[in-house]
């Protein structure tokens, strides 16, 4: 495609007053622009129309818009079929630097050079579309979450397949006597209603149910998963578009709770056993079958405890209150004692707590149960310290119920059995105690396997009502991914991106860094170790691009060459001018908007910085650093998301990998006989714009200390 490049400079929002626009515009022809225009209100109807008419009448097909941040007015400057680059003169130049200053002018000029260099190398995306996309959603787990997800999928006009390992649908709710209140005034326990839900599923023609079945294998990619379901009648092969993981939880292994007398005394049971007793209509003592009239509950039994489950299962407090009402319901003279660390009844369950608390025969106190003993008639004697009653107390109980916690089914089973190079399960589960959660802060349901969404208790401990909401969200995500891959678009967080990584495999050395480092397990391998791309699994972060030592991975609008061209286009002043140049590779997701916010708040910082937005800090290839330094750049900042246990990286591993690769960068520096301090990695959260001046200015001071790049001018 013959490019005709149009450069459009907006003079509104203070840009015109702070910069010499004429000088900037005059750069255009030299930068290859066939059309150079300025407008005082480019995002207005007239301004936008001016660009569109050039596209239509003048044949302009490549556009650089030097105006505001690409994070605003993206709809106005959305030009289909036209290669478009936004140059941020507003937030990053005039709003955060001294107006009509030589350095500010140089900054704007460099940004126009960089944008022009990029746009010249960029190509229009050509979406990757697979044939025969399946629009069926596989729901693993037939409990309330799976049932709700499948019903949601079916109601939206898609097909669902439920795989349930038990002989019947219903999951844990089959074992339950009553459920927590789900509607105002949240005071009375309710019938579970699970039978009607199961009936609704089995009578729905769009839902196929496999019971006593497991998922043996999932191969392929979103839209084209080949799933093998193991059933009593042998394996069944089916094509699936996406997956909802709703396999729920298992009760914590109570045999580890000997210190609570479990296994030692017959009348110590778990909350799950107690629920089943209630379901069977008899609250009796296992030792002698007599009715249990005094029932004690111990909260956090083996929870919030480093020796057992370190976390809170969030539902056990409300569950024990519910079970206390069972005790009271059967006998008005019965007593229920609840000993807790903290009574945790989030949300509307506070109202249920209040209602249970108001029952004459329910006794609540904070306390540590320090000893449990048994008398000759199998009554249990509890000693409790640190109570609200002003001292240690002891209490006699017919039955002791341990509020044990929830263990996600993913804690020790892969379940998904993915046929991926990176393994059968979900990565990073240890960050979430085995739960299939993702700490992608704003990304519920996401897992690190594209097209697989988790919901219900397998994701995090939650109640039935919360699981129902969760299932609905996951069902929508499952549908969304199918519709996205059907047209070759990325899903979250680069939703709608039509580019995808292309591999120039002739030059691949089978080093496996891309297949190893992709956070989403996109790439499989052949026997030799050559990557086998699965574009529909890809989130388009470019971490593979950053990893590749051979630099054979590129996107149509984001590649080694495109960014390197931008780096090389920076006009580095000679040594005698004493104007240092710092190049910042800035994560588009959090750091870039933080710089925008700095501009919006007119926070000023050193104007000798040049920023290049990157898809993820993990997509920064070390060659760009080398290119920068050999171009005379004095220092390099890499600003990305926080990483570690509470990571904020939108691609989970990007900023962490970038940090890891620092060692390589340092090697490069040493090879070039340069100080390794010239490169620094910064973690910046999206709200930390106020720290930008100290980060930038501090780094500038350090560069001044080290001295200018000795390669300058070579």
């Amino acid at each position, binding site marked *: 495609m013959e490019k005709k490049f149009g450069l459009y400079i907006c003079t509104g929002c203070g840009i015109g007053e702070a910069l010499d626009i004429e000088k900037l515009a005059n750069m255009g022809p030299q930068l290859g622009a066939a059309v150079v225009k300025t407008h005082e209100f480019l995002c207005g109807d007239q301004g936008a129309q001016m660009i569109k008419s050039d596209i239509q009448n003048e044949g302009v097909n490549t556009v650089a818009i030097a105006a505001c941040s690409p994070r605003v007015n993206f709809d106005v400057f959305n030009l289909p079929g036209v290669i478009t680059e936004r140059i941020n003169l507003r937030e990053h130049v005039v709003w955060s630097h001294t107006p009509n200053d030589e350095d500010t002018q140089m900054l704007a000029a460099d940004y126009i050079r960089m944008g022009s260099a990029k746009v010249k190398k960029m190509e229009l995306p050509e979406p990757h579309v697979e044939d025969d996309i399946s629009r069926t959603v596989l729901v693993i787990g037939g409990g309330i979450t799976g049932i709700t997800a499948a019903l949601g999928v079916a109601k939206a006009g898609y097909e669902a397949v439920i795989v349930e390992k038990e002989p019947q649908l219903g999951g844990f709710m089959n074992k339950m006597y009553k459920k927590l209140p789900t509607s105002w005034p949240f005071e009375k326990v309710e019938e579970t209603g699970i039978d009607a839900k199961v009936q609704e599923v089995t009578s729905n023609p769009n839902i196929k149910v496999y019971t006593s079945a497991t998922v043996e294998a999932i191969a392929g990619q979103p839209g084209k998963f080949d799933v093998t379901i193991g059933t009593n009648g042998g394996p069944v092969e089916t094509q699936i578009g996406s997956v909802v993981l709703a396999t729920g939880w298992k009760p914590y292994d109570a045999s580890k709770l000997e210190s609570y007398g479990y296994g030692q005394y017959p009348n110590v049971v778990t909350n799950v056993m107690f629920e089943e007793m209630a379901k069977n209509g008899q609250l009796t003592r296992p030792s002698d079958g007599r009715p249990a009239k005094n029932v004690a509950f111990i909260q956090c039994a083996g929870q919030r405890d480093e020796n057992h489950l370190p976390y809170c299962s969030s539902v056990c407090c409300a569950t024990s209150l519910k079970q206390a009402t069972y005790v009271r319901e059967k006998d008005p*003279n019965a*007593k229920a004692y609840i000993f807790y660390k903290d009574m945790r009844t989030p949300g509307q369950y506070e109202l249920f707590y*209040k209602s249970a*608390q*108001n*029952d*004459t*025969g329910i*006794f*609540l*106190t904070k306390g540590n149960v320090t000893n449990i003993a048994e008398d000759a008639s199998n009554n249990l004697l509890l*000693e409790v310290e640190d109570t*609200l*009653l*002003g*001292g*240690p*107390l*002891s*209490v*006699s109980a017919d039955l002791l119920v341990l509020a044990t916690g929830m263990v996600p089914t993913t804690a020790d089973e892969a379940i998904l059995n993915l046929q991926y190079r990176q393994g059968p399960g979900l990565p990073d589960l240890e960050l979430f105690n085995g739960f299939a959660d993702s700490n992608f802060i704003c990304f519920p349901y996401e897992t690190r396997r594209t097209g697989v969404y988790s919901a219900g208790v397998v994701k995090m401990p939650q109640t039935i009502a919360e699981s129902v909401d969760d299932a609905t969200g996951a069902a929508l995500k499952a549908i969304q991914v199918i519709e996205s891959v059907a047209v070759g678009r990325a899903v979250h967080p680069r939703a709608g991106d039509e580019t995808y990584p292309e591999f120039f495999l002739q030059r691949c050395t089978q080093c496996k860094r891309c297949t190893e480092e992709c956070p989403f397990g996109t790439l499989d391998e052949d026997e030799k170790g050559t990557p086998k791309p699965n574009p529909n699994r890809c989130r388009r972060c470019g971490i593979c691009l950053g990893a590749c030592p051979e630099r054979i991975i590129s996107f149509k609008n984001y590649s080694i060459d495109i960014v390197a061209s931008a780096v090389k286009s920076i006009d580095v002043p000679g040594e005698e001018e004493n104007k240092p140049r710092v190049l910042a590779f800035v994560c588009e997701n959090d750091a870039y908007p933080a710089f925008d916010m700095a501009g919006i708040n007119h926070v000023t910082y050193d104007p000798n910085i040049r920023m290049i937005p990157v898809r993820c800090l993990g997509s920064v290839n070390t060659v760009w650093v080398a290119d920068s330094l050999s171009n005379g750049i004095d220092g390099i900042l890499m600003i990305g998301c926080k990483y570690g246990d509470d990571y904020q990286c939108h691609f989970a591993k990007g900023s962490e990998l970038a940090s890891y690769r620092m060692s390589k960068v340092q090697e490069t520096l040493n090879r070039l006989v340069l100080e390794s301090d010239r490169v620094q990695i910064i973690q910046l959260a999206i709200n930390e714009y106020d720290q930008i001046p100290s980060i930038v200015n501090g780094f500038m001071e350090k560069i001044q200390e080290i001295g200018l790049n000795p390669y300058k001018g070579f």
Partner: protein
Amino acid sequence: MSEQEFFVEPDLNFIKDVQRAGGGDLKKCFQCATCSVVCNVTPDDSPFPRKEMIWAQWGQKEKLMSDPDVWLCHQCNDCTANCPRGAKPGDVFAGIRSASIKAFAFPKFMGTLLSSPGMAIFAWAIPIVILLIMISLFPTIYSILPHNLDPHSFFGELVNEFKVAGWGNMPAGPIKWTNFYPELGIDMTFITLLTLGIISLAVGLYRFWNTMKENHGEMGLMGAPVPNLLAAVPTIFAHKKFMECDESKNRYYGHLGVFYGFVGAFVTTAFVASQFWLLGMKTPYGQISHVKFLGNLSAAAIIIGGLVLLVQRATYKKSVSSYFDWTLIVLVLGLGVTGLGTELVRLADLKSIAYPTYFIHLTFVAYLFLYLPFSKMAHLAYRSVAMTFARQAQRDLVSAEEIA
């Protein structure tokens, strides 16, 4: 209070008693201790009402019945007004006190009789029946009394009163109370009732004292009860504790009026009785005597104080009033109104209603005496004993001012 481990066996019936007697919201407490922070009356060390609230929730009958703090509370309702949970600690304490009075009652059934609204009709019937029986027995009493006395002598007159006493004199002749109920009959009846009441009360207080000593005397008791009681008297008479209340300030005036009204009535009665038995001075006194003045003033104080309390209870919506509370207000106002009414009908010479009015007044007095240990009236004794114990157990002893 105690760091000693105790065995907990909640008493569901005690909880229900407290709930019925005003503490209906006791279970709502979630132990934030706002109540103890806002209370101006509590000692600083292990303050009430927070700890009593969870004892009540847990049905800790023994702990509550032996707790002097329950009685140190004067039901200002500062706690109730500030409770974020609507648990109404002030009312819960009133409920605990009622339930304690009931539980300390000797004989037991009297506690139940006086605390059950359903039995109110019997509770009121008993003094009426006693009085009616007494009246019907006057001829019999007359027959067994000696008749050889000079009819104009002091004792001769007393005996002769029985000859003509009872309903038969109504409405003939001048209004003369001894024509209806002889002087000696009054003394026989009411000294007996009061004696019964005091014996019962003494048993209850004895139990109360012992249980306090067993359960809350861990700091040791200082000195003897009597000096401590005397030391508490100025506080009681000055209503110092009431003055510390922020909410419901009017109760201070109401209670003060009723309290001094009763003190005045007691003084009047004691004076008249001693004048009668020592000097043979008979009633009615002239309208300008000091004693008469004190009696009338007392009646007025009781009525006005009672009305203040009535209005306060009727209009103060943050707290609830129980059967126990209303009964006492009815009793107080009844005593005051019928007492004064008895005097007024005599002065107005309203023959037709004179004796019935007097009879009603006597009923109220009988109710007061007989039920002294079982009705809310007993709080006078229990609170005084609790304050005494609190001083002796060094609980409620020293405020900064007292040291100074």
